[in-house]
């Protein structure tokens, strides 16, 4: 069994090495073309940051519609039956997922805009700033309303989105099944990011051969990787070997 696993690992390493070699050869032989592609791609993204920010409004509209629908179901039925409960719960879960995704999206788009304004001073940044503020307020409203509606179908839930202690209070009001779901989802996230970071570094190193990348980008991505690892390892160690037993 161990021999088979070792052979599989060695085969994967060889395949990765061959693919890496081919990629490097390809990059080196098309260095000018790739550099042009990266430059034009960067310019296109940066100049269209406003459009990208406007695209972000669509999921926010969907989120608002979902909350409205869930609110109507809760309002019309004092005691939700099992089907209505599942339907409403799913709607609210989806509505709460939208702000979580749209917040990084808005930051990325505004970051593009900030890069552009650094190069060319224009009203472009002001329009994007206005859109960014609108999106942030909208995201907060969706989060607030979703949590308030969720509390109606889960009366035991505690916490206010606008309070700094919201996450702590919300988690403490979760029961064992909900905590298990959170734990499993967090572990999947950890596993995904543990794969993403090395891939991202390989891509960045390849890009470096044709396009200037600031060392700060490596530092930032590396720091994020380190923070992720430490924020997993330290609590794991404390829970396993700490003085306070887990109950």
């Amino acid at each position, binding site marked *: 069994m161990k021999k088979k696993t070792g052979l599989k690992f060695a085969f994967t390493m060889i395949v990765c090495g061959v693919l890496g070699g081919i990629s490097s050869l390809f990059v080196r032989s098309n260095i000018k073309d790739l550099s042009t592609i990266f430059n034009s791609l960067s310019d296109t993204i940066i100049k269209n940051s406003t459009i990208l920010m406007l695209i972000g409004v669509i999921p926010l509209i969907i989120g608002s519609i979902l909350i409205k629908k869930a609110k109507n179901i809760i309002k019309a039925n004092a005691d939700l039956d*099992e089907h209505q409960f*599942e339907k409403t719960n799913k709607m609210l879960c989806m509505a709460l997922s939208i702000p979580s995704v749209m917040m990084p999206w808005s930051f990325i788009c505004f970051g593009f805009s900030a890069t552009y304004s650094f190069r060319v001073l224009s009203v472009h940044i002001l329009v994007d700033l206005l859109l960014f503020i609108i999106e942030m307020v909208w995201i907060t409203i969706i989060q607030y309303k979703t949590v308030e509606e969720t509390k109606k179908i*889960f009366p035991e839930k505690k916490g206010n989105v606008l309070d700094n202690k919201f996450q702590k209070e919300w988690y403490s009001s979760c*029961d*064992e*099944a*909900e905590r298990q779901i959170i734990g499993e989802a967090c572990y999947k996230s950890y596993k995904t990011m543990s794969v993403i970071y090395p891939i991202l570094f390989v891509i960045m190193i390849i890009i470096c051969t044709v396009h200037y990348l600031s060392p700060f980008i490596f530092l930032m991505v590396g720091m994020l990787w380190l923070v992720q690892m430490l924020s997993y390892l330290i609590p794991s160690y404390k829970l396993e070997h700490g003085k306070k037993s887990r109950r």
Partner: protein
Amino acid sequence: MPLENRVKEFRAAKNLNQQELGSLVGASRQTISLIERGDYNPSITLALKIAKVFEKSVEQVFYLTEEE
């Protein structure tokens, strides 16, 4: 061996809805729904609490079945 349960049956016999049973055992309605569907295996503490509400033994409420 999968864990099966008769929570839904005993809950109906006690004339309780999921929310009420959840409140009695300190769990959410969603958790009761997950247990009834067999999507979540409760901890020993929660299983004991549920059995206590139904005035049954844990084995009467939760039982293992042979895999096909």
